[in-house]
């Protein structure tokens, strides 16, 4: 593939990988865990 097009595609791949990694770190991260724990506690309190 042409070098200029390769650069553009590589930049796109980098952006996609960044988005995936940041989403994964949020999904399995402390903030999401905390939200889940709060929701579970609320549900148990209702029961």
């Amino acid at each position, binding site marked *: 593939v042409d070098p200029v097009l390769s650069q553009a595609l590589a930049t796109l*791949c980098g952006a996609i990988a960044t988005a995936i990694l940041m989403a994964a770190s949020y999904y399995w*991260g*402390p903030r999401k865990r905390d939200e889940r724990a709060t929701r579970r506690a609320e549900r148990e309190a209702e029961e």
Partner: protein
Amino acid sequence: MTKGDLDGLRCWGRPVKPVALGLTVLMLTLTVSNVANVGVFEALWLGDVVAVMAGSAALLLLGGWVLRSQRAAEWGLLLACIVYIVRSSFLFFLVGPGEQGVWLSLGAAMIAGGAYLLETTDEQAEWRWRRKHEAV
């Protein structure tokens, strides 16, 4: 201590992250080779972008260690992963899957990305986050 630290080992009162240490060396190498235009990117504009990103990653990893900043280390690991993903995909599109550098860079990106996920999803980070929000 986080999952990326060596348990019980301290160097000048700071935790030791072996993966981050190795990636710092790799990032410095990529910075120098891209600034000198001797890497795979040669004189292409992406080479300069990668040089800046690799230099920033090395600075964040070193600075994070010196200043005891977990957050800086996490961003450094993320930047290192991006640098390797860009390098790997660039080689893939330019040369093809027969190029050894594609797979070496992809493996290095997985190591960096894995280290980033281990650091950001650590319980130590959870404790830090809770402390920050409960204090408000």
